[in-house]
């Protein structure tokens, strides 16, 4: 538990910290919508601190399409998570960098715990937003289909009326998964070293 990390593993923890810095510059997630009228597709990126369209006016155009079925507008200022997510990432980067000085296996366990807590909370929160967007529909909406809801998939593809909606991790999300895998590897190799 308090054993020192090997040099390679210290480097890997440092790498995880560096990858987390990239999250500030890369989208975490991407949602892509394809419809008969949009063969080229429309889409949005979810970043730690903002939501943007795949191209300049995609977000406005998604909101316009969504208004037919009475979904709320996707507006950054209405999503408070975007304000504090950068601090959570900052805390984890700090943890990774701190491990360089206090290079104990315990720190890696704590890191993994953090990743699972943040990841689970994040995914749950993302799902909750999607649920709310898909279910809380304006009763005055022009198009109202009994029993129909429009919750986008958390991961994977789903047909919603004329729109095929696909949701996948983007570079930022991929680096998050990779970070967890790297930390898992560090734990595995440290424990093997112990046994040997």
């Amino acid at each position, binding site marked *: 538990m308090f054993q020192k990390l090997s040099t390679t593993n210290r480097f890997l923890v440092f790498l995880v910290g560096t990858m987390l810095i990239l999250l500030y510059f890369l989208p975490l997630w991407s949602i892509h919508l394809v419809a008969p009228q949009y063969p080229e597709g429309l889409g949005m990126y979810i970043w730690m601190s903002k939501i943007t369209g795949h191209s300049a006016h995609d977000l*406005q155009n998604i909101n*316009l399409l969504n208004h*037919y079925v009475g979904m709320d507008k996707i507006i950054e200022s209405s999503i408070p998570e975007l304000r504090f997510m950068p601090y959570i990432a900052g805390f984890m980067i700090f943890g990774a960098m701190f491990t360089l000085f206090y290079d104990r296996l315990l720190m890696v366990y704590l890191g993994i715990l953090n990743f699972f807590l943040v990841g689970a909370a994040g995914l749950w929160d993302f799902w909750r937003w999607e649920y709310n967007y898909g279910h809380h529909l304006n009763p005055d909406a022009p198009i109202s289909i009994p029993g129909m809801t429009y919750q986008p998939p958390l991961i994977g593809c789903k047909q919603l009326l004329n729109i095929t909606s696909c949701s996948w991790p983007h570079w930022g999300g991929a680096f998050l998964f990779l970070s967890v895998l790297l930390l898992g590897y560090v734990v595995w190799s440290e424990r093997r070293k112990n046994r040997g």
Partner: protein
Amino acid sequence: MKSASKSYILFSLLLLSSLFALSCGKSRQGGDVLAGDAAQRVYVAPGQKDEFYWFMSGGFSGHVAVYGIPSGRLFKQIPVFSVYPENGYGFDEETKNMLMTTHGFIPWDDAHHPEISLTKGVQDGRWLFINGNNTPRIARLDLKTFDTAEILEIPNSGGNHASPFLTENTEYLMAATRFAVPVPQQAIPVESAADGKFKGTITMVKVDPQTGRMGIDLQVLVPGFDYDIAHCGKGPSHDWCFFTTYNTEQAYKMLEIEASKNDKDYILAFNWALAQHCLSQGKAKDFSGTYYDNFHPENKPAVSEKRSGVKLMNPADCPGVMYFLPTPKSPHGADVDPTGEYIVGGGKLATVIPVHSFSKFQKAIQDKSNILKEVGGIPVLKYESTLGGEVQKPCLGPLHTEFDGKGNAYTSCFVSSEIVKWKIGSWEILDRVPAYYSIGHLSIAGGDSAQPSAKYMIALNKITKDRYLPVGPEVPQSAQLYDISGSKMKMLSDFPTVGEPHYAQGVPAALLADKAQKIYELDKNDHPFATKTEEEAKVVRDGKVVHVYMTAIRSHFKPDVVELKVGDTAFFHVTSLEQDYDIDHGFAIEGMTVPNALLMPGETKTVRFDATTEGVYPFYCTDFCSALHQEMQQYVRVTK
């Protein structure tokens, strides 16, 4: 004598047979074109795109039509000199100033010769210029928005036909007078035209290389012949432009007889670079002439500026600036080959296709003995001194020639209704194909530039008759598409065109498709009456004038209801808040006396509504925009 009468008989027979071909219902030749791969060659599968844009002048429609080739599909009609109810051009407050002239608002013209802007003699795809023949004008179309951006009136001219032909780097556009008139205008007897009292002008229109804005630099006074078609030189002949003339007889009536007497008319060779030099040396004088320059900045109201005064120069005051090259007979086309060495005259009543050599011409002007006489201060050279060669017995009525860049030329022949392919240099005829019927111009992509893309050729015909299903006395014009990639020309398809295409410009799709604009950015909308959010929608009253700042977005307008008083003049400034490609709105009010305003995403347009009678008047969206388009309807109320 005998052989002369023989050839006369032959000529008559040919003429008769061509007339017969026109009137004979059995002449539906070309039925075998589907043999082989012609159908495949013109088939553009669903979802696929054409290889070329083809811009065809609308003639008496005043428009430019945009087709896809090889499919022959019509994509767009761009209104230029004529009003267009479809999108409100010439009616709405943004574009009506585009049609201002010194004669007032003119909702029509006769548009003939589209020309794509050039850099180093090669199409650069920035702008398309086209002439208005009736009330002398030149228009510039923006090839990102495919809209008319500017119209410049040409003063001191009558019939702007030999126009707007460009120099090698679009330094200048040339505009020459077709119908000689008194310069300056005055009511002298028309009969005095025969005494040379009517004149023509060659106008040099400067084009700003960054903005494309046009301005008149210089007019050169020339004898009152009919200046028909022109092309400017390239490479070695960069400094020169060449204009065909007819009616060198200077007849003023019964021209069909009176203007066909001279065995040879002229090609006017004009050294524009020297003219520019002489202008800078102060050889031109201030002269009268008023004209309009109408400019339509993107997504803003067009601005009309009336200008007066030009610089006018007599050719005698700038020696060497102009020469007349005798050319048989009433020539139409003056077509410069891609190397810039040969100038082909389309002598429409000639029995040969005369080809002038630029290098021989340059040599000839060194030797005074080559000068036959002077006309209007312009030396006339001996025909032989500039002649590069003649294509013998090409066809009847050779009109216009384009090139493939592989040493071949293609000439349209009106009377014998065919296209002949011939070799530059050996002047031998290589091939001929029929056109249905009576071809005017022909068109090869870049066929008048230094770098043709010679895969296809289009015949722009004047007579259609039985080519398509009959639709009453007025039928479309016909066009035929030929494959010219092989040694023999091969007809691929036949399609109707709108208006009367005179001349056309084919452009490889890659030059324009990627930069074609999709929307107007709302952020960059600087229209003085733009409304960029629904919260800003409002009605502002200024006495009897009411400005309605209106927005349109799927699927409603704001404000919801507009209240007016009888006697009000209301301007509805409608801004589309959309920013999605091809999500357009239209706006019309019952009883509005102008056509609808058609709004592209991010665009602001203004239509006038005179509130004359009490009542409630619906307004609605006229361009199917969305699933709730039909619900996009509201009311104007007019009260006492």
